[in-house]
């Protein structure tokens, strides 16, 4: 059995998280990509939880992962719903057109 150093897998998770963050920050065009980046970040976090769960031999991490999956699903459902309503109102989903969030 190949024993992997935990650091390798953790770095993968962190890389995934950072890709998600950068996607969130650098993306200026499409709101779908934002949602996808958020999903990616959540996935990275899930991965992290699983890694530590295995590493520490503790089941709580799995429980959290299941909850987070649920929440992520609910979140993307609501996000897509908002997106749909927004599209219905504005007829586009470009991020740089969203300007009226300042009071």
């Amino acid at each position: 059995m190949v024993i992997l150093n935990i650091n390798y897998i953790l770095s993968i998770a962190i890389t995934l998280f950072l890709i998600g963050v950068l996607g969130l920050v650098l993306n200026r065009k499409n709101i779908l990509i934002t949602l996808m980046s958020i999903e990616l970040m959540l996935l990275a976090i899930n991965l992290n939880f699983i890694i530590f769960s295995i590493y520490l031999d503790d089941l709580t991490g799995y429980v959290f992962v299941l909850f987070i999956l649920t929440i992520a699903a609910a979140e993307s459902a609501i996000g897509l719903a908002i997106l749909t309503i927004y599209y219905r109102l504005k007829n586009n989903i470009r991020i740089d057109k969203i300007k009226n969030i300042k009071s």
Partner: protein
Amino acid sequence: MYLLLIFFPLIGSFCAGLFGRKLGPFGASYITVSCLIFAFILSSFAFYEVALLNCCVYIKFAPWINSEMLNADWGFLFDSLTVVMCCVVTFVSSIVHLYSTEYMAYDPHLPRFMSYLSLFTFFMLILVTADNFIQMFVGWEGVGLCSYLLINFWFTRIQANKAAIKAMVLNRIGDFGLVLGILIVFVEYKAVDYATVFAITPIFTNKLFNFLGLDFDLISIVCFFLFVGAVGKSAQLGLHTWLPDAMEGPTPVSALIHAATMVTAGVFLIARTSPLFEYAPSILSLVTVIGACTAFFAATVGLLQNDLKRVIAYSTCSQLGYMVFACGLSNYSVGVFHLVNHAFFKALLFLGAGSIIHAVADEQDMRKMGGLKNLIPFTYSMMVIGSLALIGFPFLTGFYSKDVILEVAYGKYTSEGHFSYILGSVGAFLTAFYSTRLVYLTFLSTPNGYKTVICAAYDSSYQISLSLLLLSIPSVLIGFYSKDMIIGFGTDFWGNAVFVSSENMNRVDSEFITHMYKILPVALSLLGSISSFLLYLFGNKLLVQLKMSVLGKKVYNFLNKKWFFDKVYNEYVSQFFFTISYTITYKIIDRGIIEVFGPMGLSSIITKKAWNISKLQTGYLYHYTFFILIGLTVLLGIRQFWLLSGNFVDFKIFSLFFLLSFFLGKRVQTH
């Protein structure tokens, strides 16, 4: 009776000032004149009782300031010095009041004028009768205030306004010195009433007083500051420039200010505080030198003035110089004697000048008069009496005091004494010269005015003539009759009012100086008078040539422009202060530093920064996410930094820098 003497003028002033509209000009002048005459009669009684019968009167009227060490009561002290001053002040003032009723008869504000005159007299009486320094200061400031009101009487004239402000400000410089002197007296003596201060002065010889970090002899510095006050009020060299300008007021005002009241306050102060001055020999020398310089300076300037009143003003200045140096030579009684005599003939001269001005349709330039001898003979004779008294013509009033002053100056056997004798004698020559010049140009020369004016010249009627007549009598006689009483040999007239220490006493020495030096001043006066008369009678062409020559022009300008004192003061002192007050205190400090760090700068910088920070909310989603990222990174970074080096570095400094970076950073150009 003694209090009534003081308060009569106040009553008159209130009546005329508050009810002038009801009383009308006639009623107001009637009340004020009668109040003043009553005051004079009462002060004559006071003179009889206090000075002649030698019983001093002290009235503690009411408590005023009573706090721990500082006790100042409204107290009135009547000793010889006070009653002499009271008599002079009330006499000249009542004459001036009487005179004003005709001189100012056509002025619409006569009640106001009479009210001011009476108030002036009241404050002067407060000044001379005070028994402590603080009450004296009330009178001191009061006469300054009233001089402002009176010089400024015709308040629509810009020159009168400026002259009044000048008089007030220059007096205030002296007053500041006086206040310092009184404060030092209080700090060291813990008392401000004359009796205490004078009694314990001998204990304080050789005591040092720390003023502005330097140690001075206590009594010397007190006397120095008192003398600064006297310089301002008595128009001695340095602060004299207000006096000639004060001629902008009506002529009776000039008579009152210059003859009896205001300017004599300085000499009175020195005489009153003689127990202090006697223990400050260095200040006495200073007083002598300044007084002698003033006497000489004003006499030279008076020589070439063309304004009738200005000539007399400079002669006042000059005569005050004589009084002051007489005081500086420790002959206070002589100084006060000259003060008394001078009050009479100077009032006569001023009121006579007013009569002349009245006669020639308010023309004050002597070059436009002339030939008035036959037209206004009464005024002419009065002016001649006044001038002769002024130049010290033998057996007139001025002779008795002025000659004694010069004798004591020569008899002092110190260099200041001789200095003042020489300057005083030259001053006597010049005084005679310009007095004769005044009389000649006004009365004796060929008429130079407009024909209509000269033809309409007439002698003024009852009140003016009567007041001139009343003044001419003491101008001739008072010196002779009061000489023995006031400055006679071994007279006990002064009692304790004036103190002369035995080492400064030189009356005996001055009595036995060489005959030549006694005669010299009189001879010089007569010579000056005769030479002036002859020069103007026969040497007109010569005078013109002298004036038109290169050197003559310069000398004429120099003397006519008052040694350029005003020019120097204006350009180097007042302009300097005006510039400082505008550029430095106003522009740099008030509107600069205080505004930038104070209300305006602070509020503007805060709104600007707040606006800049709120500009960070662009409204773009990705900017917000970026800020979230940055914020998280910074917080994590700080935490890491804190964990690593929190023991060595105080993170509060960093947070301070962080806050400051909002204010010191370059302005964010957003739009």
